[in-house]
């Protein structure tokens, strides 16, 4: 943008300030305005600035990936206007499959969504996509190597801030008595590598097999370069940079019904569930120091931030927002947002939890090398010149 009064071109800093406020769809269009804009928007530094702005806007952690009406595809929902949903799309084009495949979301991080498809386009094998729904760029990552008679698989996806890399981790336990194994895919190198050492540290054995295993099929969250989830022996963390597991980390309570991990204002947090005679207590704790996650001897310590007491029958908490609202599901599948400060609950759409998880999403321009454009409705584009 230049002005006739000064004839100067707008500085990159100021142009960035304007453009970071645009939705990704507009940014892609802005690449066609002029060379300086194309150059600025294509620069990885701009991607970082846009992401930072996208994640720090008020209510940024209240944009969720939810089930669509057909319970099959996915949509985006803003909690502050829950009546409006926008379809998320698919990480593949319609022509890639001869049928409509179902997909599971492993996690969403920095605008990328990691998707697992049970019956993939190559020999019907399970496969994984790294997908940016906002730019419609998706990458089918190379096949993983750990195969055999598999009993359980757990997947995780997150961002390694040290190497500026996106990684997928796959933990497998086999039907035979072999120790558990894990492999990691790096977007930067585009290969899977086995993780050494494996999960058998600490001499712990779960089901007579050395090591621990995630209790759920996916890690709960990726925060500050760590994947976190609940294992049998306590919290399990995976350092995305060093690719080392730490198992058996102490939870804030010795006895709780359940625990799920999350990101509370940029800090690793856990929500614990306790039952007393008359009611349930859900508490949010933040991890005091990440030193315990580096596989050493430092114990995990937590600070209680928020707590709610409810007497609904058999409630479950699936997550919490930076605002402090807990996401509560009651026995008859009502979804409530419970505010610990006002002690008020308000209704929320039931679809915000997908299999007991809240998946937060912010759009970004982040791209993985080797991505290609995908569009489920691609065939509708070929309607002639659309200039």
């Amino acid at each position: 943008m230049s002005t006739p009064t000064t004839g100067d071109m707008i500085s990159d800093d100021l142009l960035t300030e304007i453009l970071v406020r645009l939705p990704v769809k507009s940014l892609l269009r802005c690449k066609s305005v002029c060379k300086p804009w194309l150059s600025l928007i294509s620069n990885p530094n701009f991607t970082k600035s846009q992401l930072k702005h996208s994640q720090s806007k008020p209510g940024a952690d209240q944009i969720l990936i939810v089930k669509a009406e057909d319970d099959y595809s996915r949509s985006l929902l803003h909690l502050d206007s829950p009546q409006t949903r926008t379809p998320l799309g698919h990480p593949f084009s319609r022509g890639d499959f001869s049928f409509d495949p179902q997909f599971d979301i492993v996690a969403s991080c920095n605008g990328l969504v990691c998707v697992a498809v049970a019956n993939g386009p190559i020999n019907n094998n399970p496969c994984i996509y790294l997908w940016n729904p906002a730019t419609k760029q998706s990458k089918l990552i190379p096949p993983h190597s750990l195969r055999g008679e598999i009993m359980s698989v757990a997947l995780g996806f997150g961002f390694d801030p040290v190497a500026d890399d996106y990684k997928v981790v796959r933990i497998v336990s086999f039907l035979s008595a072999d120790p558990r194994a894990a492999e990691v895919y790096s977007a930067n190198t585009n290969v899977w590598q086995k993780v050494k050492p494996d999960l058998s540290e600490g001499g712990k054995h779960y089901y007579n097999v050395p090591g621990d295993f995630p209790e759920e099929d996916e890690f709960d969250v990726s925060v500050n370069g760590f994947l976190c989830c609940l294992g049998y022996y306590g919290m399990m963390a995976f350092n995305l940079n060093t690719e080392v597991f730490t198992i058996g980390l102490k939870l804030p309570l010795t006895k709780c019904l359940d625990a799920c991990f999350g990101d509370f204002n940029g800090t690793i947090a856990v929500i614990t569930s306790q039952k007393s005679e008359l009611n349930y207590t859900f508490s949010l704790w933040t991890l005091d120091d990440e030193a315990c996650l580096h596989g050493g001897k430092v114990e995990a310590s937590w600070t209680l931030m928020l707590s709610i007491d409810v007497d609904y029958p058999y409630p479950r908490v699936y997550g919490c927002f930076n605002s402090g609202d807990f996401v509560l599901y009651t026995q008859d599948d009502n979804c409530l947002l419970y505010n610990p400060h006002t002690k008020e609950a308000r209704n929320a759409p039931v679809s915000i939890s997908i299999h007991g998880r809240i998946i937060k999403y912010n759009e970004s321009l982040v791209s993985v090398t080797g991505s290609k454009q995908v569009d489920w409705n691609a065939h509708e584009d070929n309607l002639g010149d659309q200039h």
Partner: protein
Amino acid sequence: MKKLKFIGNPLLQSREKINMSSDKKWLTLKTTEDNEEFVVEESVAIMSNVIKNMVEDGCASSVIPVPRVKGNAMGKIIEFCKKHTEESDEKVLKEFDAEFLNLGPDALYDLMVSANFLEIKVLLDSVTTKVADMIKGKSSEEIRNILKIENDLSAEEIEESRRENCWTRQE
């Protein structure tokens, strides 16, 4: 005779002359490009981080020189800062900002550059959001028209963009 602009109640002008020990502190800002002077309350002026630092460091003498900002932009900036220090009702401020920023791209540009230079975050946020709203949802051609930008892209660059982003044309 110096041209003095008093932003505020003209009655205060006379009080200024008679009684200098009022509770409010006043500063004089002088735009060095066109030598216009503005007398403002310190509480309003320090919405600019640059001026705030100067005042805190004790280097604000009787007249603070402000380079790079023209007189008419300075006047508008002071009007904005004054409203934002006086008013706390979010709704009222929002309405004020909408009316205040109802300007053409050139005036918005001047305001933006000045707000950036003077480090007035609230104003910079408002102006950049306004400009972003002006281009949101528009085609690249429309954006060029609004902001008076020349299309200097090569044929290949245009073609590549078209291929990558044809889906963005569907609203």
